[in-house]
């Protein structure tokens, strides 16, 4: 599959990310699921889609190693790709950078410092941030509002987060967004929830500010590859 087809054929198109989310500044996206259901796999597909469309992506992995994160990108790309040339793959990797933090080390202040370093030293100016492993229990609304401000300052269009929800926590927002994000769901433009049901894994679109489909629409995940499919 050529690059153009990879972009146009991507089921993520229904989210309208390409023409709206990244054009509007400071959008926040969220992928939620219970532990081990494939949040990172979804984030990596969103990142790759953004990279294929020419954006630069900074993947912030909290509590994960560079090698494992890099492997995820390589694995996912190899599953997605038909015939991207080596040159195109090389070009794609140049649009990605991985920044890992130990859990106890990560703070908004440190992320800000590092981001400014990257941009001001002209090393890497990301259009999209992927933040995997962010602690929503320990950081509230204020942190996210600060982050939105930082995005405006640094010209970052979109940040995607992952969040873990728990089976035994019944709290949900009016839109069905589970805890711990149920009280801050208004800050996100797109919210996806991974939900296993009867041997299939569904990807519910709980909120979608730019969607071409109605909220409540569902995508599917291939259980073996965790690639997003149209339902």
């Amino acid at each position: 599959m050529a690059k153009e087809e990879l972009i146009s054929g991507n089921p993520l198109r229904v989210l309208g990310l390409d023409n709206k989310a990244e054009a509007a500044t400071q959008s926040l996206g969220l992928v939620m699921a219970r532990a081990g259901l494939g949040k990172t796999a979804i984030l990596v597909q969103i990142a790759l889609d953004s990279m294929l469309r020419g954006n630069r992506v900074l993947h912030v992995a909290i509590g994960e190693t560079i090698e494992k994160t890099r492997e995820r990108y390589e694995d996912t790309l190899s599953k997605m790709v038909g015939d991207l040339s080596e040159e195109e793959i090389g070009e794609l990797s140049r649009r990605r950078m991985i920044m890992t933090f130990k859990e106890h080390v990560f703070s908004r202040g440190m992320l800000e410092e590092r981001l400014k370093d990257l941009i001001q030293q002209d090393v890497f100016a990301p259009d999209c941030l992927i933040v995997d492993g962010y602690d929503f229990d320990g950081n509230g609304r204020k942190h996210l509002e600060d982050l939105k401000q930082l995005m405006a300052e640094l010209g970052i269009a979109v940040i995607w987060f992952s969040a873990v929800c728990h089976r035994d926590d019944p709290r949900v927002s009016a839109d069905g967004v589970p805890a711990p994000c149920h009280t801050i769901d208004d800050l996100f433009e797109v919210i996806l929830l991974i939900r296993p049901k009867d041997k299939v894994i569904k990807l519910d679109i709980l909120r979608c500010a730019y969607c071409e489909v109605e909220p409540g629409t569902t995508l599917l995940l291939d259980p073996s590859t965790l690639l997003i499919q149209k339902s």
Partner: protein
Amino acid sequence: MARDLSKVRNIGISAHIDSGKTTLTERILFYTNRIHAIHEVRGKDGVGAKMDSMELEKERGITIQSAATYTSWKGHDINIIDTPGHVDFTIEVERALRVLDGAILVLCSVGGVQSQSITVNRQMARYRVPRIAFVNKCDRTGANPQRVTSQLREKLELNAHMIQMPIGLENDFDGIVDLVKMKAIYFDGDNGEILREVDIPAALADEAAERREALLEEISMFSEELMEAVLEGGDIDPALIYDAIRKGTLALEFTPVFVGSAYKNKGIQPLLDGVAAYLPCPTDVVNFALDLSKDEQEFRVTNHPDDKLIMLAFKLEDGRYGQLTYIRTYQGRLSKGDTVFNSRTGKKVKIGRLVRMHADEMEEIDSCGPGDIVALFGIDCASGDTFTAEGLAASMSSMHIPEPVISLAVIPVDNKAQTNMSKALNRFTKEDPTFRTYVDHETGETIISGMGELHLDVYIERMKREYKAEVQAGAPQVAYRETITMQSPFDYTHKKQTGGSGQYGRVAGYLEPLDEGEYEFVDAIVGGVIPREYIPSCDKGFQKSLAKGSLCGAAITGVRAVINDGASHSVDSSDIAFQLAAQGAFKEAYLKARPVIMEPIMKVAVEGPSEFQGSVMGSLNQRRGMIIGTVEEGTYTVVEAEVPLSEMFGYSTALRSLTQGKAEFTMEFATFKQVPKSISEELIKKYQAEKKGQ
């Protein structure tokens, strides 16, 4: 009487440079009574440490070439290989790990897990070598073994736990608390040779009890008996604890951490106890050989002395006693006067003298058996060769050997130096598979290539010192490669008629890119249009063409040559005619196959205080580096990048000035990648100019 293999330990000592592993080895030899005085690595007595037997090693204070030595401790026979720490010499580390059963990972209690430790750990994981960790230099300012243990868990992902704790640190480092025996140990006497085991000081008793509890909880998963004993409460038999730690260590699921200071003679004897208690004996480790009579099918070596002999030559040395070949025996017995077979060459070899090496001294022995590491005299072989008993076609699995990435020309200053240089190069290439040499036929220069600037520097020094070969070295050059990117046909006739018998040969077919491997020759000739006897000549002709590409003069790799048509002449065809025809065909097709230049790309890791992260990344970016990512550790950051080797010359100086000397970097070969167009054009232009100038 059969040797008790459960009492044999083959261990390596690996670590980051300057972690003190040579000092540690020196102390081990002293406490096991193999040497009777202690000499420091850079000692004032001018003797140097025992294991650093090469002149150069003594002078630079680093271990360049591993030396094997044998010692014994409380009834256990221990073979130790002291391994180098610099990344340029990792082939030595890898070879040692290939033949060893277990290892001590030495770490500096101040520096902690540094970049080279990560490389070494990766190598150990590749060869599934169980390890114990020794946190050295607890007497140094800033020593923090607890932090180092956390780093072992976080950076190396080892399930590391301290089984000892220090009594005091830095200047106050007095001894250790053994958390298994729950005793304090002090090291008395002039050289710490007298162990005094007493009750744990009251001030440390609570901490020790807490740590022991955490340790027991961790290791009880390896032993049901221990788990039951822990649940029941009361005194626990130390034997149960030793057993659980051993099981965890052998399964590579647990890494016991020891503490001490080799320089201050503290903590070495308990570490030796640990080697005996927790590291595997030869029968604990599963090793495989390849059955050459069954298409290289893997089979498990038996470790049994009565089975047919299999042994691996893992190191050659040309020392004061002549050529020494270090071998590891995997099964069977070898005695003086035996005849064995070299699996690679098929040649018979008679075993003359058999010795156990103790650094640069040796002990004559009559025979050796499974698990032994010994040295042989006067055997002609290469490193990595397998020797077997007659009738057994087997080879130990091949070692992972990286391609050289850097080369330079060496020019002998006179005729005597020329002769000596040849001898030296012949020896070095046999000793070290990552060190290669060839003569550039166009310039007539001898080119040496290897894994880094330091690697080649050391061999040049050795040529001068050991072989009295004075040479001038050229500037280091990157080992570029050329390869093709598309299929290209050829149909070439070599015809020469100048009186007497002529030359005639026609070859047709195509060249195409080969995804894996360097070169492949495919004979698709039908109907005998090229007689069978000339097919190898075609192959030979193509191979000759690969030596030097026409773009920048680099070796050509990744080519499949397929011949499917041709013609011959009953009188004028010959071996040389078809070789020349193939060379002509290659030349014809090569430029049409869109050749490109490939360059070695290095994986670079720069580790330093976080405040310099931005400038470090900037410096790598300027060098055409691709930043893969950063690891935030708190106060310091590791930047990982892939950078072309050609851009890394002089980087250590640049990094020093950028970071006030506070950052360090390691690099290792990652892959070959096509050079950007602008650089390719420059290289081609340069090569053309050089050719014209000749």
